[in-house]
């Protein structure tokens, strides 16, 4: 178990591409930290710099207070699980598990014990003598996990480990990784582009975009108080609905439509120029007192069983509304969605798109 610190870390590729900008991040001991973001956001580069597979252009990375910038990957006491498993195809599962220990000149007896232990933990005892190509995707992933665990490293690194699995297996493996962390309590840094994976696994999530950290926070915090419009749009399914307009006093106005908001902060009120009004699907309700949106026609209704998601178009944009399973609406139904009192967010209409907190927000969380 160890802490990991990124201090002013930059990565500039020889072709001039600035992949990671001034990254500052502390991973706490035993923490499960997820790096998430769209492809090309710099999350994998960050992880690979931590692993030592990618050189750092400037700044420093420390593992347990030891700066590792110039330390070989094998000497950083980390283990990594790759997206494509990266199992050695010409070795049996047993040899794959043992390889790292063998390279570290671990006594044979100990290698055998640890391999057996890990195999039983992961339920792959029966596969030990097989070659990777004789395994299914899930089994391979398990072996890759085993190869990391058997080394008992200070930090586990995961580079999109589940993206090659089918949906069902992904859910299953997700749970296994979570329970693994619970059991081992080792520091883990996990990279994914899948926000569901991030939300379900991470104790803390770091959202990245264009090589910069957008927000680093616990999952619910991210969900409830996204730092900016990017985070708000990235986290949550279906994504947050947005309307672009102006704010006059506490009245949000957009193309002839106006919504009265309560508890708008002074910061928001004093903002000059356009703002974005964001609200999640569950913040729209049908029978309530909140400020109403114009009457709209439902175009699509997705039945989920425990609830339905309805889609409608407002001001040229597609929006979603979460409906209880009991509501009897169909495509074509006309509805008047209302906004829950604290169910909205205001963002500046600029490059950063920062969120304006509501007046009484801290009390609500």
């Amino acid at each position, binding site marked *: 178990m160890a802490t990991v610190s990124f201090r002013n870390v930059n990565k500039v590729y020889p072709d001039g591409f600035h992949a990671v900008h001034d990254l500052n991040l502390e991973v706490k001991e035993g923490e499960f930290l997820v790096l998430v973001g769209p492809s090309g956001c710099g999350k994998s580069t960050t992880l690979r710099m931590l*692993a030592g*597979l990618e050189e750092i252009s400037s700044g420093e990375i420390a593992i347990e207070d030891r700066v590792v910038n110039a330390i070989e990957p094998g000497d950083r006491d980390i283990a990594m699980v790759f997206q494509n498993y990266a199992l050695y195809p010409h070795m049996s599962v047993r040899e794959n598990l043992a*390889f790292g220990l063998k390279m*570290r000149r671990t006594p044979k007896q100990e290698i055998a014990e640890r391999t057996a232990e890990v195999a039983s933990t992961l339920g792959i005892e029966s596969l030990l003598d097989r070659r990777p190509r004789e395994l299914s995707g899930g089994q391979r992933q398990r072996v890759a996990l085993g190869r990391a665990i058997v080394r008992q490293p200070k930090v586990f690194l995961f580079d999109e480990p589940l993206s090659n699995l089918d949906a069902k297996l992904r859910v299953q493996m997700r749970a296994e990784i979570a329970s693994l962390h619970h059991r081992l309590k080792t520091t883990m840094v996990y990279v994914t582009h899948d926000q569901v994976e991030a939300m379900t696994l991470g104790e803390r999530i770091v959202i990245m975009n264009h090589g910069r950290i957008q927000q680093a926070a616990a999952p619910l915090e991210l969900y409830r108080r996204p730092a900016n419009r990017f985070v708000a749009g990235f986290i949550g399914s279906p994504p947050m609905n947005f309307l672009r307009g102006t704010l006059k006093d506490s009245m949000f106005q957009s193309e002839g439509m106006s919504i009265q908001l309560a508890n708008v902060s002074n910061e928001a009120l004093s903002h000059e120029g356009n703002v974005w009004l964001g609200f999640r699907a569950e913040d729209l309700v049908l029978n309530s007192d909140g400020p109403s949106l114009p009457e709209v026609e439902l175009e699509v209704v997705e039945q989920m069983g425990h609830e339905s998601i309805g889609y409608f178009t407002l001001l040229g944009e597609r929006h979603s509304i979460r409906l209880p399973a009991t509501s009897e609406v169909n495509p074509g139904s006309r509805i008047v969605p209302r906004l829950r009192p604290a169910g909205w967010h205001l963002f500046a209409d600029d490059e950063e798109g920062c969120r304006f907190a509501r007046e009484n927000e801290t009390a609500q969380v």
Partner: protein
Amino acid sequence: MLDATRELPANLYRRKPAWRLLAIIGLLITLSGCSKQDDRHVIQLWHQMVVNERLFLNELVTEYEKQHPEIDVRLVFKDTEELRSSFQAAALAGVGPAIVYGPSDVLGAYHTMGIIADMTPWLDENARAKFKPGGLTYLPAKDGPQRDDSQNRDLVQVSDRFGNHLALVYNRKFVETPPQTVEELIEIGRRNTLDEDGNGRNERYGLVWNYEEPYFAVPFITGSGGWLFANEENTEPDLDTPQMVAALQLIDDLQRVHGIVPRGCDYETADSLFKSGNAAMIINGDWSWGDYLALERIDAAIAPLPIVTETGQPMGPMISPKGYSLNKNATPAQRDAAMQLITYLTSESSQRRALHSLRILPSRTALYDDPLLTQDPTLKASREQFEQGHLMPSGSEMRAVWDAMRPPYQAVLGGAISAKDAAAAMQANAEQAISLLQRDDQEIGGSWLWAALASATTLGLLFWQRRGLATLLPDMRRQPLAYLLVGPAIVLIFLTVVFPFFYNLLLSFSNMSLTHFQDWGFAGSQNYIDVLGDGQFYAVLLKTIIWTIVNVVFHVGIGILLAVALNGPIRGKAIYRVLLILPWAVPAYITALTWRSMFHLEYGAVNLLGNQLFGIPPVNWLGEATNAFIACIIANVWLGFPFMMVIALGGLQGIPQDMYEAARIDRASRWQQFRHITLPLLKPVLAPAATLGAIWTFNNLNVVWLVSNGGAPSNKTHILVSYVYKEVFNLYRYGYGAALSMIVFVILLAFCLVFLHRAKATENVYG
């Protein structure tokens, strides 16, 4: 049930084109048969004349055709060796040209094979008397009925010229008057052997010649009063004589004692030294004089070879007539027409024209009065030399004697044995070679037993594959177009692979040889017994295995090393890649010959660089057996590594990068990554490539043959295929050669099966 495919529209277009294609092929065949009919009498003439001679022959023939409109002469040029082998092959098949033109040394073999006809009936006593001795070549009649002329011999060649004789060519810039005696030769040689800058290497040599070939030793032997055969018919070798010892001693002394001849002097070295003005004198044949005389850099002149003082005998070279022979397969009408043409081509007027335009020595006595022969200094010297010359025997024994002489001769010059021992070895070799050549393996009975065995095996194979065969016919009926389309390929493979293989198999059980060229028959397993009972075979096999292993190890090793280096992040990768593939892109024979010259004892780059950069004393690469073998290996390693490098490079690029990343995290060092990741993951591509490489190397004739110049020194550098080549083509032992190659085939087949199985090379490592 109805044939379901009949319902398919696809069947329609599948069938029709099949018949259409057949119709087109049929039409083409018909058309080709309708080409313009030529009712002229066609006479084919195969020859090996060089360009200017060819043009002259063309001129003569064109005139002849004008005078004889009913005759159409077709001239076909082939290189000497190719002419020999293709004429033999054609004649064996019962066809071939009516006339074949060439030197007389192959006549013995042709005649023993029974592929050339006696020309006596067309030349009467009177006509024959017009030729100089040797101008007409006779050989003892091969069985057949006794003829009227009591001589009982066949006229096998009517020549139109003499040539191939060696003489002394000297550079007048260094030599004023050519030497009359060997003493003078040595004296002039000494004066002209100079180390001007005192670096231990001579800038000029007194005398050069190709002393790897015994043909060039003949003047020394005749000058010492000896000859190669004991009897007049030139069938009994006589090599272990004091004269031979004296001749070998003299040659060796010129190099070792007098130091006027460079060491390691082959034809090319001698030729280029003389041409570049770095040698005062050269002994070379009439074919080369034109080049020397034309060179302005040197002032060349021809003189007869000197006299050996001890014996008072002139150093007489061999001379051989070149002329026309008649194919035994020619029809009587063709023979008449062909002989008429030969008479014209060898007539006095034709030869006089040849004398004046080509400056060659005629074969008719009358022409020796021509003033040109005394006016032209070159022709004058050539004639003088010719008069001291000795006719080259045309029997097949001559070839055996050359083969017998070469190894001991080279060994003497390399300092490996004494002249006395060499002479004795030559005689022993010659007797053995001639007995092999004349060996008359009789057909044996019991061929029906073998035929039955072969039939049973074939039937067994067919029975084993009965399922495939059973579905073949219906399948052919269902897919006629498909079979029609693969048909040509199948026919081609049958003709070029299947048929030759079985023909070779058949030959390996036959007594086909010089004595049974056309009438060969079944000889049981005699050839296999001969091969496997020969100690030489095992020695060569061992050497071949060493050759193969060493080569393949270096090919693969260097290939992987360079591929790994090229695969890394280095500047100018593309340039290195092209440079490293270059050895492969250059034709192998050019590379081999280049290496041969680089290994030259005195002028080769290897010794020069080794000496100047590292102070290594010169190594006699090509003159010493082990060194020559190492030289062959070095040349072949150079030739072979690029292929493995390309294969390994491809394999490396197929290894996923994250393997290495995982290994780095597993704390594998560079070497461990190479050992545990790169090597095992390269195996699937390299194992088949190495197998192929082993087969190619095992069968690599060119490099061994060219670098070591046909197994020199002393036949010590042979690998199996060059050994087979030599055995078969020099001594006409076709059955024996076929058996040898079948054994080579079995060895390679076994190797491939075992190696590929062991390496699990066909297994895919990735999922």
